[in-house]
């Protein structure tokens, strides 16, 4: 399982960073960071969101200029002013958010980033060769918009490989992959390393790093807090280095109250409005009082369309969505909220909150139902008071109720938005990507909050890409793949492997009975 690296880890370092520092106006992103990567080594950079990993990689890739420090490449000091210079040195980078052009084909996208002669036909052959050799199947003539997220990542990797890199940087590459696809990616990376390519692997997922990497540099708050061989460390000890304390855990007590259906989705099908959208087909799911139901799956498999159909942004046929026994499929978002539905969207700024408005004004947007408006007139003091109570109860670190939404960190804004919805005592709460881009401490708080909410008799539906999160908080888990939903299975009866299989679409189409039987 863990073969010894065939190339010994000594000799001249391929890349050496010496005392790199980078300051942004409000934050010191990198503080005296040093790092050594040898040929053929798979080196992890481990840290939370905001630990400074991405900034450090941008410095190596020439996208950001360091304020201080030196970069040594194969023993020589180098200056990397822009990404083109990095590519010329032999540094390739696979971004977390892909830089592909949707309406161009795979081979056109690759041609754009390669210099030399412009010959699409022969390049297409080369792309096929490289993709076959490294087990990354790709059709060079397909348009990028028709590719899945995993396939897009392959395009990025193949694009890097065509430039014969000596160092490949991957930024959170597995966040968009199923567990099975992760294993395949690891095989490809090991093959590359055995050919002498160095790999910098950025992640916050401890298990992956322990499986793949020989060495790890751990970062916290812009500083290096440790170097380790991840195979000799436990997840707990790595986590201590990463967040400075033990990994927090959630408590999920047994629900004592009456279990009755609150949100029922019946045979929901819908054609997408968007040309790049996913068709929802025959989705069935019931969320009961006192439980958290999770929907796993990789974004782009119908998540956005399902959320819009549930929140009421795109109304569907009347009977398809039932809220507390009432058919509401045809009603808009406001009417559904009036009936006890709360909804926390994935995009906090712009959808969950208006960036330039104060927290008090943002509270008013959905909580105007809580007597914050009378005779069509706003009650400013009441809205401020509501926001203030939300800030205190949910431990939102901010400059008070008058602070602009955009001035809050991701975790604190999410706490405020979730808090705003909970304080309206919903019957059903739908949350998308609850801890996306949120630090470990705030994540644990938000997860516990959702569990507690459900145990007070609310039905909670969570849509998330993070499998570990779903296994931590959900009572039942379903998978959305290709616009179809698998039956929701109790957490104890499934595992990451089974969920991963379902993510590739391998499951029996659910019937309304099967969701009840679960």
């Amino acid at each position, binding site marked *: 399982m863990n073969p010894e690296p065939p190339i010994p880890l000594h000799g001249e370092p391929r890349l050496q960073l010496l005392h790199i520092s980078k300051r942004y106006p409000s934050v010191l992103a990198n503080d005296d960071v040093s790092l050594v990567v040898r040929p053929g080594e798979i080196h992890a950079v481990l840290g939370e969101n905001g630990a400074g990993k991405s900034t450090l990689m941008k410095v190596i890739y020439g996208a950001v200029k360091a304020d201080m420090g030196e970069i040594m490449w194969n023993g020589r000091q180098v200056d990397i002013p822009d990404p*083109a210079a990095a590519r010329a040195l032999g540094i390739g980078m696979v971004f977390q958010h892909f830089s592909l*052009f949707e309406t161009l084909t795979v081979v056109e996208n690759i*041609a754009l980033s390669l210099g030399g002669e412009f010959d699409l036909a022969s390049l297409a052959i080369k792309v096929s060769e490289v993709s076959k050799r490294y087990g990354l199947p790709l059709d060079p003539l397909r348009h990028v918009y028709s590719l899945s997220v995993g396939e897009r990542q392959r395009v990025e990797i193949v694009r890097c490989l065509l430039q014969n890199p000596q160092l490949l940087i991957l930024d959170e590459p597995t966040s968009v992959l199923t567990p099975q696809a992760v294993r395949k990616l690891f095989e490809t990376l090991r093959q590359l390393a055995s050919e002498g390519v160095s790999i910098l692997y950025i992640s916050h997922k401890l298990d992956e790093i322990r499986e793949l990497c020989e060495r790890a540099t751990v970062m916290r708050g812009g500083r290096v807090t440790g170097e380790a061989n991840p195979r000799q460390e436990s997840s707990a000890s790595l986590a201590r280095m990463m967040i400075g304390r033990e990994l927090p855990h959630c408590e999920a007590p047994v629900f004592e109250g009456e279990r009755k259906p609150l949100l029922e989705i019946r045979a929901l099908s819908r054609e997408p409005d968007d040309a790049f959208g996913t068709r929802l087909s025959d989705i069935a799911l019931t969320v009961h009082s006192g439980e958290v139901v999770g929907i796993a799956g990789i974004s782009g498999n119908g998540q956005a369309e399902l959320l819009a159909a549930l929140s009421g942004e795109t109304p569907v046929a009347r009977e398809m969505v039932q809220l507390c026994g009432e058919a509401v499929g045809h009603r808009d978002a406001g009417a559904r909220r009036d009936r006890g539905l709360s909804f926390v969207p994935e995009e906090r700024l712009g959808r969950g909150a208006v960036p330039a408005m104060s927290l008090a004004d943002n509270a008013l947007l959905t909580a105007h139902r809580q007597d914050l408006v009378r005779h069509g007139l706003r009650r400013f003091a009441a809205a401020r008071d509501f926001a203030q109570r939300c800030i205190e109860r949910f431990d939102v670190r901010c400059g008070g109720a008058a602070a602009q939404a955009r001035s809050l960190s991701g975790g604190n804004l999410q706490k405020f938005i979730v808090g705003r919805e909970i304080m309206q005592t919903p019957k059903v709460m739908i949350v998308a990507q609850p801890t996306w881009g949120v630090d470990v401490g705030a994540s644990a708080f938000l997860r516990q909050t959702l569990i507690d909410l459900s145990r007070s008799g609310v039905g909670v539906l969570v849509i998330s890409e993070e499998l570990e999160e779903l296994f931590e908080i959900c009572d039942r888990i379903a998978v959305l793949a290709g616009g179809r939903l698998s039956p929701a299975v109790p957490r104890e009866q499934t595992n990451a492997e089974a969920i991963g299989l379902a993510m590739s679409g391998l499951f029996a189409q659910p019937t309304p009975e099967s969701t009840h039987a679960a």
Partner: protein
Amino acid sequence: MIEVLIPILAGTLAAATPLIYAGLGELVAERSGVINLGVEGMMLIGAVAGFAAAVETGGGAGVGFLAGAAAGTLAALCFAVITLSLAANQSAAGLALTIFGIGLSAFIGQHYVSHSLPGLKPVALPLLSSIPLIGPVFFKQDMGVYLSFVFFGIVWWVLAKTKLGLMLRAVGESPESAHALGFPVFAIRYGAVLFGGAMAGIAGAYLSTVYTPLWVQNMSAGRGWIAVALVVFATWKPGRLLLGAWLFGGVTILQFHAQALGVRLPSQLLSALPYIATIVVLVLISRDRKLLQLNLPASLGKSFVPGR
């Protein structure tokens, strides 16, 4: 029957020519992500510059085309500085350019109101022009029409077959990604906008020195707007633009022939036909959101400021 058709079809081609020039230019600009609503203004500036140059030098339509292209380029340069370097709103700047062009051309054109030009004689291409029907329609035209075919071929080839065309489409799709790949986003957009200006200028010069070779105030009569609409109608594809231009050219010509053919409709209604057709076609196209979305340059109309 064919004898009746030939003048109508030949006239259609000539009427479509200004739309092809202006439309191709706007298509290139929009493919780079810049929407220039100043086409009507640039056409008028090109028309008056071309007419004035042809009259003053006595050099004929060729000089007119060059002067029109230069004037259109200059007008587009103003637009490019405002919208690209200064990142101002493209729609507002384009509308301003149109208003400016209408005023400027009327002001300069005052001196030329009574003048007229000889225009261009049709040139029959050997062999090709003797093909029945196709020959007299396509190959007994003036040089301005032939030149528009050449430009169509160049634009189609560059967009479909060259790296430059690919880069242009990439910039229009996502200037941020193109910038990250190290493409000169500003240079490409400047180039596309200036090309659009030159083409609109030639379109205007064709109108004033060849199509109706005398100066009339506001002589483009909304053709610039039809060209902008045509680009959407063509879903940003040169081949469809050509077809669309012929369609609108045909509608324009039909109104002249309709009365001769005994159609009893008020002449005002007939003159309004091309504009009504524009509205109808745009409504029909806009109904198919997916068709538009798959072809629309994603960054169209959005300013690009690196690092934001």
